[in-house]
């Protein structure tokens, strides 16, 4: 079906999130939608899927005006959307999630649904267990489930809002194959991203948003520099590797073993020095997180020792690590990093060294304003953190870090961030390295790991490689290691326990 968006406007208070957007998308094509963080991509897609109502403007489907008052209207019109954070039901089973939203009848069409799920999954080469609980699935699998569900409901227009964030390389390949296939069957696909490579390999056409406005459209073969200029209004690039001289050891990990009921990692030996950046690579759930959490004092190691600045910290609490200058930034910013409902200035008030009993409002406000300026956060001191875009939440988290830290532990420091924000984040981090802080981070972006780390540890099913020198390692080598090549056999054991 052909979609036409005409003069769409959307305001959130003073923010003009969509400003007069006119775009038409022919059926059977994959339309890319590019834009920096906060450009208004999600807003526009939520309007098209009935989740938000435009303040002005209209939507036409095959030339006929379409009024969407709720997502239910959009589903009836054949429009389905995969939201940026999967909107599903983690404590329920896959099959229940699949049936949820089925429009007719009193009984649950269990048998029909199971058959449909399995046969659709087979067509696309996905493997989903109908009886598994969704909270045991990876983000990629949850996404596959959503795709199949929408197809079962008969969606003809499918919107994907940044679907490649947090999924593995193989899952990404499967996803792209599925999208190409759907487009060839005549379905209209809209693919939201801020990654140029993805547009290049996948999209038949692309539209670029900046600050709420549609700034241009492009067709293959794409000129990537032009796209960057459209996205950010200027040319930006990653720049060369930054080499920082290393100082004395900060963190020493000796024969460390950590476990929970799913996974055990053992025999990790490592010395991290001032100014050094260590990247942890591997598929999600291979043990990187365990190591980071152990070094933050969040889980107690079952064997081995952790030393920080020459002091044995094994078994000490999170707070004693914090006092030693170890900071930990988790992946789920809204769940573990920031407090939803509190404003930026309240966060700064919380983060500050507690001196008095009463909060000195004026001082906190001044500090907050300074940080907003210095860290270029798009928001006001009284903005609640959940109203910030992903990039700005990450900036806020970094702004909240105390000065003079010894070690920063990070999960996915730039997940969901656009190129400019990602570069900015790393410049800030490298600045910290120059002041003799060590950084220990995990990421699923291999380029990021290779470009910013000094040394790399690869995790596979709980086993850890020897540190690799980032300067001499290639993306291919890294990819193979992540897939388990180079580790001794018995790769199934870890998965078995995880079930």
């Amino acid at each position, binding site marked *: 079906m052909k979609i036409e968006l005409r003069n769409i406007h959307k305001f959130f208070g003073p923010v003009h999130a969509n400003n007069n957007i006119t775009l038409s998308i022919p059926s059977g094509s994959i339309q890319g939608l590019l834009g920096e963080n906060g450009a208004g991509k999600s807003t526009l897609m939520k309007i098209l899927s009935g989740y938000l109502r435009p303040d002005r403007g209209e939507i036409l489907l095959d030339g006929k005006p379409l009024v969407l008052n709720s997502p239910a209207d959009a*589903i009836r019109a054949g429009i389905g959307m995969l939201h940026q954070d999967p909107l599903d039901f983690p404590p329920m089973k896959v099959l229940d999630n699949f*049936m*949820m939203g089925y429009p*007719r009848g009193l009984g*649950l069409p269990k048998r029909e649904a199971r058959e449909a799920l399995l046969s659709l999954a087979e067509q696309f080469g996905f493997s989903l267990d109908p009886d598994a609980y969704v909270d045991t699935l990876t983000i990629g699998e949850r996404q596959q489930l959503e795709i199949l569900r929408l197809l079962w409901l008969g969606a003809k227009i499918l919107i994907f809002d940044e679907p490649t964030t947090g999924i593995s390389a193989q899952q990404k390949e499967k996803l792209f194959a599925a999208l190409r296939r759907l487009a060839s069957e005549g379905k209209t696909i809209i693919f939201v991203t801020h990654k140029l490579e993805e547009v290049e390999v996948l999209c038949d056409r692309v539209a670029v948003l900046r600050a709420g406005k549609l700034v241009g459209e492009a067709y293959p073969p794409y000129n990537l520099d032009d796209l960057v200029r459209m996205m950010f209004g200027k040319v930006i690039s990653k720049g060369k590797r930054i080499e920082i001289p290393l100082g004395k050891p900060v963190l020493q990990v000796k024969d460390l073993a950590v476990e929970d009921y799913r996974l055990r990692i053992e025999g990790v030996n490592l010395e991290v020095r001032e100014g050094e950046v260590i990247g942890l690579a591997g598929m999600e759930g291979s043990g990187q997180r365990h190591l980071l959490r152990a070094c933050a004092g969040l889980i107690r190691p079952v064997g081995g020792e952790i030393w920080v600045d020459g002091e044995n910290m094994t078994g000490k609490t999170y707070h004693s690590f914090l006092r030693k200058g170890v900071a930990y930034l988790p992946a789920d910013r809204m769940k573990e990093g920031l407090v939803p409902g509190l404003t930026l200035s309240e966060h700064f008030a919380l983060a500050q060294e507690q001196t008095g009993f009463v909060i000195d409002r004026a001082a906190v406000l001044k500090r907050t304003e300074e940080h907003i300026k210095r860290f270029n956060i798009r928001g006001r001191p009284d903005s609640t953190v959940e109203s910030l875009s992903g990039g700005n939440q990450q900036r806020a988290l970094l702004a909240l870090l105390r000065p003079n830290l010894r070690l920063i532990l990070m999960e996915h420091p730039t997940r969901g961030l656009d190129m400019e924000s990602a570069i900015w984040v790393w410049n800030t981090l490298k600045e910290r390295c120059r002041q003799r802080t060590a950084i220990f981070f995990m990421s699923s972006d291999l380029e990021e790991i290779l470009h910013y780390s000094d040394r790399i540890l690869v995790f596979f099913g709980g086993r850890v490689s020897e540190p690799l020198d980032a300067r001499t390692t290639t993306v291919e080598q890294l990819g193979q290691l992540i897939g388990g090549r180079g580790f001794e056999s018995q790769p199934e054991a870890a998965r078995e326990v995880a079930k």
Partner: protein
Amino acid sequence: MSSHEIIIGLAGVLFTAAPIVFATIGETFTERAGVINLSVNGTILLSAMSSFAVAVSTHSIFWGFVAGIVVGMGVALTVAFSSIALKQSQVAVGFVLTLMTRDLAYFLGNPYMGLQGPRVHNWPIPVLSKIPVLGTLLFNFDPLTYFSFILIIAAWWWIFHTRPGLILRAIGERPAAAYVRGAPVNKLRYLYTALGGALVGLAGPTYSLSVKAGWKGTISGLDGIGWIALALTIFGGWDPVRGAFGAYLFALLQWLGLVLQPYMPNIPSQVLQVAPFPLMILTLLFVNIGNTEWVKRTLAGLPPDARRWATRILRWMQVVPPSALGTTFEEE
């Protein structure tokens, strides 16, 4: 005690548990939709009093029940409206309402204190009630008790085996996700809060026109039942069958308190009367044991097969509240 007395006693447990079953299942529906109606205790008192008053004045049991149900729905819709439309805290509103309706019941009920009123009669089920033992135990009740049996099954079937029930679970779990799947979240929340309120309201006349017929003001012995129903909703893991099981357990404990009293003259009767309450709390603790760190650690040490079974049992026992319980959801 003869075996016949025991059977009569157990039948009595099923009979006296009926109103608690109504209130628990009512609250289960409401909370499954994501709304906490904390007013249950006061609502039961007010609906018991009003249905008795109406039944006495109109000489009609039917209108008595209607009055009780209307009161329950009215209070519940007040909670829903102030939460959904006015964005007020459900807990605060519910708490104020529970105190207010309680005082209102005692105050407005004064003129009806101790009056003779109509009561619901037994309807022994032909043939079935003649079966030895089973007939007395299951088929010699008034219609309300039969209805409580049917309600348990029907509610369980609705919540876990129908399409609307799946959506009900969804709106209490993650309203935004239910909304993108086409569910009219707030409309359904009103609907289920009203339904839940109606069932809580039904508990009132079930007391005042049947189980504890009459209205005796503060000594009616109904105060506290609503809080038990709220606890049972949690204990039952928002599952009608488990909730009802809890209601029967509670009624059984109460009955045991009564029958054991003569055998234990050293224990003050108050202890036996109050005992069911701490026992319920212990059960709640036990149900949630699977969440604790030490249990998880112990499990990790078991061989894989045993671990899988233990995990499965714990997962079954463990209760997980609807994630969006007590929150509001704004449809654009």
